[in-house]
């Protein structure tokens, strides 16, 4: 199988939605470049559990250093910037997303000579990732820009948001609104925010519907590698009509594919759930290693760093500020515990009928990776879900070893295939612990 299977040609991967996504994202990046020269109001913000709707309400252009780092990596341009950051003291063990972005800043990528505007404000939406704080402290110091902190308490009481946590976050959001009023000289308009939040909810419904379509066989798109096409619009452009329209179009396309029985790959063989960010410097190489086995990702945790909308949450125009706070507190992957992530993955495996879990462990992001060995223990030993764990990085190309990666992936799928051939599903059922759904057992 691995010796004969070939990855699809370069233009086969979901090109329609990819092109639509590129169109709206390019328009946004053009705005960024224009703002770099004009000095139009802009603000740094982080992706996970963000409150971009508030910036949008004041026509402040959102800038996402994470997306900058991602683009540097996927275009294979990250390493010189990482090295530049290491020159001034960043350690090899620091998050390479931060290093690439800081290096880019130091080498004049930010400001009127660069492609990214020097922000008028730095908004640190601290939602689970402690590195966010350091990153934006450093940006504020190096760029001499004021920092507004939004401290979002970590989920620590299950699915309930406490009144105290909600009040704390809303008080800070009001502080952000005051800072935006001061920056722009404009009064806050709640009706404008309602309209923006309405667009967010429409995009979220589309996001949710698209992901739901991956429950069909074959899945119409790869929910790891192709979901990047949806992550840009949902996280960076949320709250715009363009993003909402994008999701309408994407859903229509995926529904058409599902109705015609078209999948992300021909003859879908394996359905997997992915955990962890992808190795952006070798995105296509990595994808090809799975495509060679006709393995399709039907759900992924990484795609939910911004929000877990597939489980039903929507921003609410009737409660705009409250729903923004709830989204930040509860309805995104980053602000939730490892055990809640296990539950999320388990739902994915069961409801999306996956055969296996693949964990891509990245050194840069300890929010994702710290404890993934325990995750593997849980899924293999307690739930009986075949699990593959591979390591590299999401940004730093020095940590990707193609041959080793290929060996592990091939060995994993060979093993899965062998189990199928000898009809091991029945055996798996007999040894699975009670409480694991039929879907999990089928997945073996």
């Amino acid at each position, binding site marked *: 199988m691995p010796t004969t299977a070939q990855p699809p040609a370069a233009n086969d991967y979901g090109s329609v939605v990819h092109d639509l996504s590129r169109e709206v994202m390019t328009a946004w990046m053009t705005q960024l470049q224009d703002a770099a020269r004009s000095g139009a109001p802009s603000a740094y913000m982080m992706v996970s559990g963000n409150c971009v709707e508030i910036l949008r309400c004041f026509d402040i252009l959102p800038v996402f250093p994470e997306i900058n780092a991602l683009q540097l990596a996927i275009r294979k341009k990250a390493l010189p910037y990482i090295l530049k950051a290491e020159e001034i003291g960043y350690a090899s063990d620091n998050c390479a997303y931060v290093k690439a972005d800081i290096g880019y800043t130091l080498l004049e990528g930010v400001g009127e000579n660069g492609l990214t505007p020097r922000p008028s404000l730095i908004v640190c939406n601290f939602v689970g990732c402690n590195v966010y704080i350091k990153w934006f402290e*450093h940006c504020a110091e190096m760029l001499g820009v004021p920092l507004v902190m939004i*401290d979002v308490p970590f989920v620590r009481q299950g699915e309930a948001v406490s009144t105290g946590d909600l009040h704390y976050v809303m008080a800070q959001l009001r502080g952000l609104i005051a800072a935006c009023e001061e920056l722009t000289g404009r009064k806050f308009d709640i009706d404008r925010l309602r309209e923006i939040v309405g667009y967010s909810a429409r995009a979220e419904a589309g996001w949710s519907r698209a992901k739901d379509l991956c429950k069909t066989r074959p899945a119409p798109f790869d929910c790891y590698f192709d979901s990047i096409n949806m992550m840009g619009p949902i996280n960076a452009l949320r709250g715009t009509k363009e993003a909402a329209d994008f999701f309408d179009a994407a859903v229509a396309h995926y529904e058409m594919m599902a109705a015609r029985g078209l999948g992300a790959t021909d003859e879908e063989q394996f359905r997997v759930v992915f955990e962890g960010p992808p190795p952006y410097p070798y995105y296509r190489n990595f994808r090809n290693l799975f495509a060679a086995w006709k393995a399709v990702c039907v759900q992924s945790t990484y795609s939910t760093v911004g929000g877990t909308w597939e489980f039903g949450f929507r921003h609410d125009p009737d409660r705009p500020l409250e729903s923004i706070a709830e989204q930040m507190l509860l309805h995104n992957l980053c602000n939730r*515990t490892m055990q809640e992530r296990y539950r999320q993955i388990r739902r994915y495996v069961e409801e999306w009928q996956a055969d296996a879990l693949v964990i891509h462990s990245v050194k840069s992001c300890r929010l994702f990776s710290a404890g993934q060995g325990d995750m593997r223990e849980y899924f293999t030993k307690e739930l009986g879900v075949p699990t593959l764990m591979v390591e590299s990085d999401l940004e730093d190309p020095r940590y990707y070893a193609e041959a080793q990666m290929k060996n592990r992936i091939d060995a994993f799928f060979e093993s899965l295939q062998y189990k199928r051939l000898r009809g091991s599903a029945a055996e798996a059922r007999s040894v699975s612990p009670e409480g694991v759904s039929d879907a999990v057992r089928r997945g073996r």
Partner: protein
Amino acid sequence: MNFSPGPAITSAEEIIRECRALVELLPSQALARARESRPGLRGFGVFPVYAPQEIIHAAGLMPVGLFGAGAKLETTRADSRFQSFICSIARSTLELFLSGDLGRESGFEGAVFSSICDVARNLCSVAGRNAPGVYVEYLHLPQNAATPAAREYTRREFARFRDNLAGRVGRPIDDEAIRRSIALYNRVRELICELYTQRQERPGSIRTADLFAAVLAGTCMMPEDFVPMAEALLASVREHAPVPRDTVNVVLEGAFCEAPPLDLIDAIESAGCQIVEDDLAIGWRIFRKDVPVEGDPVAALADAYLAGSAYTSVRHDSTRPRTRGLLERVEASRADAVILASAKFCEPALFDYVLFRRALDERGVPHLKIEFEEKMWTFERLRNEIETFTESLLFD
């Protein structure tokens, strides 16, 4: 060993020897030692950097600092849970849970973690899954001191901890009990602060490794026992004649979580440095002034944390940037240089190094970066590096 008042322990050497022996114990062993004079006493782990130990103590439990297990424990199962690029304290702490050392049968009621870094937050969750029956709490400490809402939030968070803990031990934790514990810990902090003053003002009166051993010992014994011991130690240190040496006075910064080996501290001082200020075990001596014992004690602790605590690398406070805090620390201790010592893979310290270095360079303060790991056992290379640094300053 019992540190209750008595004539047996009088000399600093003897106290330090006992402290060093105590910090060599695993948490369960330290608790067992405390139980010799307090049968039935139960323990509660406190992962760095800070948690309100007064509330734990007021619940009738012994707060036990979890600073890693050093070379005391072989890490076997935890290595498969946490990857090689994760700091050692996370793996050794998980091992303590997996081995049952922090379990109910060892006398532990639970443990508390807080929002210091991404590893700690995941560790809390993983530890909880692997230690069924052990109560594991997570505190989200405020990262935004600039908003007026932080005060009420922090009070609520500490009150939530109190209520959950009370539910766990099956009895209320009343305000009066917390006030008594605050008074006791005020005295603990006062004594530690005075020992720090002695070290700074009378160089050689106590070595930093010994001082650190005493502070660590205080995190694995009842504060009622620590106070007389620390009083005796202080009295002895005050009598000890200073031993002036031709050294470079340094601030040691960055070891606020995982405990460096005592031998590493000794290596730094034997290489020509005199540590005059540090952030070792900073969470256990974080308040600069006494916490008030009047009024709402939970609010008093929350206010002290927000406005009256030392800066740390795990907390954002726009009203008191850490770079300014470090420069003030250097100035107040009249240090000549700074040794930035971070635990291997410790992201908060490694990130802060960049801004600290920048601020120190601007101020013309020499600095040296080193990394340590709790299980390290050979210090020659490091000693050599520090000696070179020291000599470059002494003979410049």
